[in-house]
């Protein structure tokens, strides 16, 4: 601010306005505002560095599975699945209508040798894949999105089932539970191949 400004012609006024400005600028910051700013700064940082992955955490049976959020872009209410004549791939449950599109629906539990719960808690369809290669994957539960630094993704140990092992790029620790981060590209290739 310029003191020679015609608006501040009088010296006394200039001093008091500067005091007012100091008060404004140096007022204590509320903790809520501080948190918000920290969050925004962190977010910006992440976008630049891209060292975090956003992962959609779901559950099938007693296994927690993570989908890269760039690959799994929607979660849908479960819909009716119709069987496809002359197509017997066990990974193919049939087709389902999701948001006005008819897409194949997968049996990930069979593909990954998972033991399915008898009564799924909150069944959902996870819609995965690019527009021309969409799949609906029925899961027993969707927990939500988590952000995980890439460095925190650990190599899968041999303790998980052999089939799951093959389709997992890493494990994520979630409050003591381990979720398998699925290999999206591999999964999609495998599923698509079962359609013919």
């Amino acid at each position, binding site marked *: 601010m310029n003191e020679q400004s015609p608006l501040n012609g009088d010296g006394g006024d200039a001093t008091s306005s500067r005091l007012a400005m100091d008060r404004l600028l140096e007022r204590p910051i509320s903790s809520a505002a501080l948190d918000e700013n920290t969050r925004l700064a962190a977010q910006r940082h992440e976008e630049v560095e891209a060292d975090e992955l956003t992962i959609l955490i779901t559950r099938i049976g007693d296994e927690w599975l993570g989908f890269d959020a760039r690959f799994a872009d929607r979660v849908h209410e479960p*819909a009716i699945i119709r*069987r496809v004549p002359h197509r017997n791939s066990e990974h193919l449950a049939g*087709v389902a209508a999701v948001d006005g599109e008819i897409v194949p629906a997968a049996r990930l539990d069979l593909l990954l040798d998972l033991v399915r719960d008898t009564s799924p808690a909150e069944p959902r369809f996870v819609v995965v894949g690019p527009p021309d290669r969409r799949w609906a994957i029925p899961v027993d539960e969707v927990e939500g999105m988590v952000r995980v630094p890439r460095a925190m993704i650990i190599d899968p140990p041999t303790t998980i089932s052999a089939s799951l092992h093959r389709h997992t790029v890493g494990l994520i620790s979630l409050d003591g539970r381990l979720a398998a981060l699925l290999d999206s590209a591999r999964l999609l290739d495998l599923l698509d191949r079962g359609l013919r």
Partner: protein
Amino acid sequence: MSDLGGFSMFDLFREEAETHCASLESGLLKLEANPTDGGVAIEPLMRAAHSVKGAARIIGLDIAVGLAHAMEDVFVAVQDGKETLVSERVDQLLAGTDLLRSLSKIDEAAIEGWSIEHKPKITETITALEASIAVVVAAAEVVVQAPAPPPETEVVETELVVEESAEVPAAAFAESPAPPPASDAPPTSEAALSREQDEESRTVRVDSSRLERMMQLAGEVMITSRRFQGIRAQAADFDHRLEGMEGGVGAALRDGHEPLRELRREIDEGRLAVAGLISDLDGLLRRTEEISADLYGQVLGSRMRPFEDGGHGFPRMIRDLAKKLGKKVRFEVQGGRTRVDREILASLEAPLTHVLRNAVDHGIELPDVRRAAGKPETATLVLEARHHAGMLLVRVREDGGGINPESLRRKIVERGFVDETMAARLEGPELHDFLFLPGFSTAAAITEVSGRGVGLDVVQSMVHEVGGAVRVESTLGVGTTFELQLPVTRSVVRAALVEVDGEPFGLPLARLSRVTRVPASEITTIEGRRQFQYEGGMIGLIRFATLLGLPETEGDPDVESVVVVGDSTGRCGLVVDRFLGEQDLVVRRLDPRFGRVPHVGASAMLEDGSPLFILDVEDVLKSIRQLLGDGRLRGTGRDRVSSDAARAKRVLVVEDSITVREVERQILVQMGLEVETAVDGVDGWNALQAGHYDLVVTDIDMPRMNGIELVTTLRADERFKTIPVVVVSYKDREADRLAGMQAGADAYLTKGSFREGSFVTTVRDLLGIEA
């Protein structure tokens, strides 16, 4: 605006040039046919040439500016009466139009190459255009005293009269051209017509994927709006319950329970509110249904185009072709405004081009031949489109020489399709069907026009692909008519819904004879096959579940629900679990990742938003014929394979031509082999899935899945990697042979091999059997 972001200036020029070239061409041909229209009809041509010139100037294409300018000058000269558009002049102008159009077809990067390549031709055209004006102007100055020649003479010079209006009687084009119609009446109607057309053709290009999404959304809106019905039912139910409560409270009141008075008042208010809710919902329901139906209709309508949009090139093609062959042809388009699904329209262009060329080349006679036959020298070729019984009928009709049944029969015998006694019995459609066999041509001489090897079989397979049929009617000396029957749209289909093993399926109604419930008492079992009496014939029954590879379920033991499919040549009944009714289904193509699924044509969504499959009745029929023809279900053949070591070798013949198929079958049966047949690649693939075969004999050109695709598919499958495959095709070029062998065929034979005996030898060698 963002949609324009991706366009360069050149893209815009291309679009503009394309549009103007189309109007230049059609305008020129119209003018050539009706030179007296000059004043009125020349305006749009001048505008078109002028616009192209302007557009070319903007992007700095001087070469195109010069050309368009020269063309414009000619039009100006014509308008001023200094020039008349005779045939040569039209040729020059059309040449110019072609050059501009070819410019509209190239990429921006190719401009320079194009300019260099076409420079001489452009210069030549410009010179010709400029010279023509100079000559005419000079001539006009010389004969300034003499009266202008009557315009009729121009008609005499014109070899081809192109007339798009059907109203003009054919007599007007008798041998000596009648004087042109009074100049004021037709131009007025013509002008009115073209104004209307202009309005209709003001179109916006829509990305097909966007359109698809719009359709999905519109469908979604429709489905969502139906949910109101449920809400309304709930509210009504609530109202009903309140009513009951009110009655109860009323009774209590009579017994003097005072506090209930207050409760009653509340219930009254509640009911009032609910009634308001219901009436609101009713209004909303109606409105949403209206809007969504409208939206849906609009979006669907955007797929429909007038038939004439599909054949811009036809008049020109026919004119040039007739001129080259020295024939006189009057081409007429009738029913040009008939609305056709753009997908169908696009798929029609190639087969129609073929049939039209065929008509001019083979159907229509030379003028002197026509005169000798007492016919007008100018032949009439009509392309007609109309809706009939839910189908789109497209006819190509000419008054040419017709097909000579005797020479056709001779040809059939020559080709070895059938023997003479059988050929003599062939009549009408049955006889004409041979025209659609691959490689079959009745042309006495192979001309440049029709070429070799491109037969009507291509037309047939293209028409089959969109779910249509094609047939020929011909009378010797009178003319020939090709009729293409096509679905009006591939977007909506009226279907019967049936349930099989708990799954709903749609069967297009147009393909069904009827649905009926047959009491068990009317079903007889002969040799393990079930059948019932229907319209005087026996109809074999097949469990639909078996056909579809679904588990068989127990239906009603007393009455079977039967869908009768097929035509007079062969009908059969599909046993389903139950009928679910009829519904219009919005056809969605099957996800291409599925490849070809046997018996499935497309997918669709029911009103509750659940998916279902629409079955391909043709394909179902083929499978059934095979099942019934074999007298057993495929797959049961396997049992015999293991039990009988000395069993006959089994051969699968995959061939779409019934004649070739029959020839091959007979040869193989005579060799002591067991033979099954399939009518195309998909059918063959289905057969291979179910049965055991020692050898496959396949054709190359087949609808749905061709031979190359079939062989490739076989070789990619572990089970069929080693099965011997013989390709038998009309295609005898080295490249075709190579393609067949590369796909994995063990032998590649041409269809002549039947007579040479190489077919027999090859089959023996591959099966390892003694002669």
